[in-house]
C-alpha cells in the first residue's frame, strides 16, 4: 500500500481545467502513482474515495475548499508533490492589481460589463450546476452566449434557448465545445483561414474536423456556430440550430452553408429541411444517423455521406464547382486496408477505436458496422462510452462522461488513452488501433509526442505476444494550429503510426480492415 496525502486549501477556487492541468503535472512526477486536484464537492469526494485518494485530511473539505490528493511511492515524493501543487496553484492565480490604484478583476458579469459596456458575447464554462444562472444573466444583459459547460439540465437548456430567442440572441450550447466567430476561436477551436463556408453544427468535433478539412483543401470558414449536442432533440426544438442557420443565410460573408448534426428528432430535422428550402444559398447537409426523409438533392442542396465529403462538397460549392456527393473515394482506402493487415499474427483479429472526439468515434463505428456482418448487440451497451461492440471490434469514446467524470478530457490529457492502448496491445489480439489526434487552441501542446511514447510501449507489449502493432491515426488540425498539422503528422509517422487524410478516411479503412478480418475468421 503506497502512502496517500491530502492537502486542503480552504476557500480557494480554480476552474476545472486549471485543476486538471495541476493533476496532470503532479501525476507526471516520478514516483507519483496518481494525483488529483479538485474542489471539495460531495460528488468530487466520492470520486476521490472511489480511486482510493480520499486522504483523511480531505474528508471534511467543503465545496469551496480546494483539495489535492496524491498517491506516491514514499513520503518524500508525497511532500515534493504537495509542494509542487502549491507552486502550480500559486502560478495559476490571477495576477493581482499591481499598478497604483488599479482595480481588481470583476467578480461578476455585472462588474465586467461596467468595465466593458460594449461586450456582446459571454463565454461561459463554469460548473454545470451554476452554468444556467450565468447564461441567463448574460442573456438578460443582452449578450450572446457561448456555453461550454455540460451537465446543464435539459429543462434549463429549453428555458435558456427560449429566452435567447425572445431576446433575438444566439446561445451556442450548453455542451458546446467549439465555435468560430469571424475566425475568432471559442473553446477548443482550430486556426482556420477566413473564407466563404459557414458551418452550423451540433457536434463539436464534427465542426472542428470539417473546418480543418475546408482549410486544408484551400478554402476558408466565415463562421462556425455550435449549438450544443442536444439542440435537435424534440424538447429543445432546434432553436439554436435554426437561429444560427438564419444568421449564416443572411451573412454577407457566407456563400455556402454547411450543416452538421448529431442524431436528433425527425420532426426537428424536417424543420431544418423546411427552413433550408426558404434559403437561397447552396448548402451541404450531413446529419449523422438521419431519420427524417431528406428533400430531393440538387446542385444547390447536397447531402454528404460523411464529414470529409461534407467538407469537399462545401469547398466545391464555394468555388462555384459542381459537387459530387459520392462519399469518400474507396480505391486508396482499400489499398491501405490491405497493407495494414499484412503480416499480422494469427490471433490479431479485432479493430479497436480509441477516440477523444465523439462524432469521429461514431463515424468510425458506422463504417465498421457497414463492413462487418454480425449480430447487433443483443443488450444495450453496458458502458455508455462504448460506441460500438460488434463481434470482437470495439470503439470507445474516451471523451464520454463515463470516462471524464473527475478526470481530464482526453483532448487535454492523453494518459487514459495511452494506458488503454498499451493494455489492449498486451492482449495480442488487436489487429488495428484507430485513434484521433485533435489539435487546436486549448488542447494538448504536443499530442503526437504524447502518443508516440505509448505506441512504443504498446509495440513492445504486442511483440511479447508475437503480435504486430498497427496504429492508424487521423489528425484534426491545420498547419496554423499551435501544434502544427505537418509537424504532428511527421512525429506520428516517425513513431510508426499510419496517418490517414481525414477522420472519415481512417474510419473507412478501419471498417474495411474489420470486414476483411471478420470474413477471414
Amino acid at each position, binding site marked *: 500500500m503506497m502512502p496517500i496525502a491530502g492537502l486542503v486549501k480552504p476557500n480557494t*477556487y480554480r*476552474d*476545472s*481545467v*486549471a485543476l486538471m492541468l495541476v493533476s496532470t503535472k503532479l501525476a507526471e512526477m516520478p514516483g507519483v502513482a496518481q494525483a488529483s486536484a479538485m*474542489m471539495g464537492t460531495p460528488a468530487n469526494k466520492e470520486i476521490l474515495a472511489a480511486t482510493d485518494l480520499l486522504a483523511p485530511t480531505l474528508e471534511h473539505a467543503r*465545496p*469551496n475548499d480546494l483539495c489535492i490528493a496524491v498517491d506516491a511511492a514514499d513520503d518524500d515524493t508525497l511532500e515534493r508533490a504537495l509542494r509542487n501543487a502549491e507552486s502550480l496553484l500559486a502560478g*495559476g492565480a490571477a495576477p493581482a*492589481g499591481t499598478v*497604483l*490604484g488599479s482595480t*481588481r*478583476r*470583476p*467578480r*461578476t*458579469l*455585472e*462588474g*465586467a*460589463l*461596467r468595465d*466593458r459596456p*460594449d*461586450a*456582446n*458575447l459571454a*463565454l*461561459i*464554462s*463554469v460548473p454545470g450546476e*451554476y452554468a444556467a*444562472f*450565468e447564461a*441567463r444573466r*448574460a442573456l*438578460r444583459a443582452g*449578450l*450572446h452566449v457561448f456555453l*461550454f*459547460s455540460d451537465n446543464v439540465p435539459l429543462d434549463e437548456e429549453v428555458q435558456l434557448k427560449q429566452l435567447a430567442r425572445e*431576446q*433575438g*440572441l*444566439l446561445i451556442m450550447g450548453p455542451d458546446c465545445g467549439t465555435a468560430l*466567430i*469571424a*475566425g*475568432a*476561436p*471559442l*473553446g477548443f477551436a482550430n486556426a482556420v483561414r477566413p473564407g466563404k463556408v459557414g458551418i452550423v453544427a451540433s457536434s463539436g468535433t464534427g465542426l472542428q474536423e470539417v473546418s480543418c478539412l475546408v482549410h486544408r483543401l484551400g478554402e476558408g470558414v466565415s463562421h462556425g456556430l455550435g449549438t450544443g449536442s442536444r439542440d435537435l432533440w424534440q424538447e429543445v426544438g432546434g432553436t439554436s440550430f435554426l437561429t444560427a442557420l*438564419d*444568421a449564416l*443565410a443572411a*451573412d454577407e*460573408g457566407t456563400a455556402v452553408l454547411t450543416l452538421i448534426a448529431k442524431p436528433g428528432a425527425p420532426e426537428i430535422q424536417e424543420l431544418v429541411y423546411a427552413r433550408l428550402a426558404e434559403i437561397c444559398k447552396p448548402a451541404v447537409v450531413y446529419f449523422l444517423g438521419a431519420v427524417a426523409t431528406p428533400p430531393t438533392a440538387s446542385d444547390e442542396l447536397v447531402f454528404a455521406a460523411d464529414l470529409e465529403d461534407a467538407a469537399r462538397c462545401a469547398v466545391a460549392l464555394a468555388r462555384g464547382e459542381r459537387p459530387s456527393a459520392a462519399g469518400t473515394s474507396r480505391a486508396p482506402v482499400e489499398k491501405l486496408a490491405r497493407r495494414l493487415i499484412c503480416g499480422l499474427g494469427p490471433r490479431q483479429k479485432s479493430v479497436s477505436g480509441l477516440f477523444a472526439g465523439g462524432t469521429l468515434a461514431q463515424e468510425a463505428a458506422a463504417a465498421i458496422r457497414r463492413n462487418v456482418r454480425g449480430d447487433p448487440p443483443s443488450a444495450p451497451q453496458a458502458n455508455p462510452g462504448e460506441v460500438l461492440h460488434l463481434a470482437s471490434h470495439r470503439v470507445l469514446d474516451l471523451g464520454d462522461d463515463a470516462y471524464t467524470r473527475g478526470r481530464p478530457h482526453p483532448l487535454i490529457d492523453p494518459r487514459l488513452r495511452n494506458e488503454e492502448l498499451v493494455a489492449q496491445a498486451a492482449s495480442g489480439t488487436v489487429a488495428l488501433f484507430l485513434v484521433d489526434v485533435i489539435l487546436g*487552441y*486549448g488542447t494538448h501542446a504536443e499530442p503526437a509526442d504524447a502518443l508516440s511514447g505509448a505506441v512504443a510501449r504498446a509495440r513492445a507489449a504486442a511483440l511479447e505476444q508475437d503480435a504486430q502493432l498497427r496504429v492508424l491515426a487521423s489528425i484534426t488540425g491545420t498547419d496554423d494550429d499551435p501544434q502544427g498539422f505537418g509537424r504532428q503528422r511527421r512525429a506520428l509517422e516517425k513513431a510508426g503510426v499510419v496517418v490517414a487524410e481525414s477522420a472519415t478516411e481512417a474510419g473507412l479503412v478501419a471498417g474495411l480492415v474489420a470486414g476483411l478480418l471478420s470474413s477471414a475468421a
Partner: protein
Amino acid sequence: MVSQPIDALLSGAPRAVNIGVEQFVRPLRAWDSDILSVDWAPPPGGIPLAQALDRLEAPEIAPRIEAANARVVERFLGARPALVDVQPAAQIVPLLRERALLHAGPPIVWEEMTGPMRGAAIGAVLHEGWAEDEQAAEAMLGAGEVGFTPCHHVGGVGPMGGITSGSMPVLVVHDTAWGGRSFCTLNEGVGRVLRFGAYGPEVQRRLGWIREELGPIVGRALRVGGAVDLASIMARALTMGDELHQRNTAATLLLLRELAPRLAELGLPGAQHRTVLEFMAGTEQFFLNVAMAACKVIADAGSAVGAESSIVTAMARNGVAFGVRMAATGDRWFTAPVNTPRGLYFGGYSQEDASPDIGDSAITETVGLGGFCLAAAPAVVPYLGVGGFDEALVISREMQTIVAASNPNLAIPALDFAGAATGIDVRRTAATSVEPIINTGIAHRSAGVGQVGAGTVRAPLACFEQAVLALAETVV
C-alpha cells in the same frame, strides 16, 4: 429573420467576457484584445443563493428593486443632518427613565456580552448610582435587574459597547431635509474610557464632568447659537484627509470652528470655557460620535421609504453577532458571528488581545463613509494595517462594486473626485462575495482595559446572503 444583435455579432470579431475556464482567454486575444475575464467562484451560499439572485434578476422584479433603491439613494444623498441639541438620553428615549441601558449591535443578553460591553455596563450602573461598587453592579446585572435594548431600536447609535444610560447627555441630530432624528453619546476622549469597557474612578470622573458640564454647555450653545449643519462639515472634512470613522481630525476642528463663537455667547467662567474648548480640541475623534448620529439619521431616512429595496440601512456589532438591516425588511436583523479586526496594535498588545468586532460605528460605512472612502484618508492607511495607499485605492474601488450609487456630495480627491460609494446593495455583495470593509478601533477582550489598536474588519458575507434570501421571499 435575423435579429439585429445576431447580425452585429457576425459582423466582426466578438467583444467577449469570459466566465470560467481561463485557458480560453489567451487564444482569443489576437481577435479580441480587450477580452475581460471574470474572477468567478461559486457563491459560498451555493445553489439556493444563486436561485434567489436569479429570481431577483427576473425582468418583472429587477426594475421594482431598482426603483426602490433609487428612492432610498435619493434619501441618502439628499439628507441634511444638523446638530441641534445635547440632552440627557432619558429625555430622548423614555425607556431609559427606568432601570435600563442601551447597547451596540443587534439584541444581546448580559450572559453573552463580551468584556468591553460588560465593563461599560458595570460603569453605567455605577454612573447612574444604581449600585455602590463593581461587585454589586455585576450582581445586579447578573440578576437581570437592568433591561437592555439595542441603540438602533430606539433611533440611536453608540460607539464600541454602545452602553448608554438615562443621565448621559446625547448629541441630538435632526435631518432638516426629511425630518428624522437620531442621537449618540458624546465622545469621552482617549485613554481609559467607558466605550472600551473601562469603568474605574478616572472614567467615572470624566463621565460626571460630561454629564454636569460639557453636555449641558454644548446643548445650551446650540440652543442659543443655532444648529450646526453637519452635511457641509462632513463633505469638507473628506477633502481634508478624514474618512470620518478612524480619522475625524479635520471634522472636529471644523465643528469647533462652528461651536467656538456659540460658546463665547454663553459668558462661561474663564476656566470652564477653556476646559470645554481644550477637551474638544484635544479629542481628535470628538466628531466621530457626531458623524455616527448624522449617519444614523441618513440611514433611517432611506429606511423609511425602503419597501422592496435591497439597500443596507444598518450594520452593527455587539461583540458576538454582526447585524445587518435591509431597507425592504425594515427592523429585521440578519446576523452572523462577528469577525475579529486585523490591524496595528499599541505597544505590548497583539491580535491575541483583540476583542471581537463591536460597536454601532459601522453606520458610517452604511452610508458610504469610513472604510468605503479609505482613499480619502491617506494618513490613517498605515495605522489601519492596510497594505499601503495603493491597497486603500483598490479597496475603495472594490467597495464601488457592491453599492447602488456614488455620492457626489462626498467627493474623494484621490479617486479623481469620485463620490463616496454609497448604499450597499445586498444583491451585489452576495453575488461578488466582496464583504464590506469597516474601519474600526480595537478593544481589549477583557473589561476595563480599553483600546489596544485600530484596524479594519470585514462584515460577514452570511448576513448579506440571508438578506438576499429574505428579499427573494419578500418580493412577489
